[in-house]
C-alpha cells in the first residue's frame, strides 16, 4: 500500500493542476474517471469479442479498473506486462481527453499486477538478503516503473540495505546497495 501512497505524493508535487482539480472534484472525479475508462475498455473487448468483466474501484486516491475473464485477456497483458502498461497509458489519455484532467488511473488485467506484485516483493526481499550476505551491490534486470516500485518497497522493508533506480527507460533498473 505504501507503493500507491508514494506515487500519490510524487504526483501531488509534480502535477499541480491535477491535484487541485482532484481536491475540488475529489471522489466524484475519480468515479467519473472509472466510468470513462470502463466504457473505453468495454467497447474494446466487444470489438475484439473477448470475454471480460470490468470492475471499477477507488483505492488510495486513484481510480482502479480491473478486467477479469477469458484466456484472450493474456493478449492484452502481453510479454512482461508491456501490453498492459500500454493499454493503461491509452486509457489514461482517453480519460484525460474526456475530463480535461491528467489521470493516475491503475489498470489490471487478468490479475497480472496482483500476481506480479507478490513475485516481485519476494524477489526484492531475496535480493536484499543476498546483498546483506555478500556485502556487494546487485543490479537487477530492467523493469517497468510498476515493477521497480514494488521492488523498492520490498527492499525498504529489509534493514541494512537501500535501493535506487538507474539507467534510462526501457532499460532502467533497480540497484540494491548495502547501507554502510
Amino acid at each position, binding site marked *: 500500500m505504501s507503493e500507491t501512497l508514494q506515487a500519490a505524493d510524487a504526483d501531488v508535487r509534480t502535477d499541480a493542476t491535477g491535484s487541485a482539480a482532484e481536491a475540488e472534484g475529489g471522489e466524484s472525479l475519480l468515479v467519473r474517471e472509472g466510468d470513462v475508462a470502463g466504457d473505453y475498455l468495454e467497447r*474494446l473487448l466487444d470489438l475484439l469479442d473477448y470475454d471480460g468483466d470490468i470492475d471499477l474501484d477507488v483505492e488510495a486516491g486513484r481510480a482502479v479498473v480491473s478486467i477479469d475473464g477469458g484466456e484472450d485477456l493474456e493478449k492484452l497483458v502481453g510479454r512482461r506486462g508491456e501490453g498492459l*502498461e500500454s493499454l493503461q497509458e*491509452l486509457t489514461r489519455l482517453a480519460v484525460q481527453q474526456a475530463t480535461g484532467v491528467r489521470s493516475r488511473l491503475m489498470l489490471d488485467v487478468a490479475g497480472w499486477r496482483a500476481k506480479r506484485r507478490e513475485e516481485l516483493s519476494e524477489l526484492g526481499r531475496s535480493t536484499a538478503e543476498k546483498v546483506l550476505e555478500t556485502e556487494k551491490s546487485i543490479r537487477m534486470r530492467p523493469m517497468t516503473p510498476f515493477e521497480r516500485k514494488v521492488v523498492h518497497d520490498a527492499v525498504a522493508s529489509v534493514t541494512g540495505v537501500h535501493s535506487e533506480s538507474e539507467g534510462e527507460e526501457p532499460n532502467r533498473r533497480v540497484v540494491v546497495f548495502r547501507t554502510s
Partner: protein
Amino acid sequence: MSELADALEHLVRGIVENPDDVRVQLITTRRGRTLEVHVHPDDLGKVIGRGGRTATALRTVMSGIGGRGLRVDVIDTDR
C-alpha cells in the same frame, strides 16, 4: 472491415479532439499486414505523443492482439 482495424480505430478515437475524422485501414501485402491510421492534422501530435510514446503504446497493444509482424503506421496527412 477487420476487427483489428475496428479495435485500433476505437482506441484512437478515444484520445483525440476529432474522433469523427479517425480512419483506420488494414493493408495486407506480401510483406505483411499494416494498420494505417488517419487522423485530423490537429490530432497528429496527440496520436504520436511525446517522443513517440503514444504511437508506441498503440503498436504494443495491437501487436499483442494481432500478433507479431502487425505494423501500425500513423499517416501524416499534411504532406
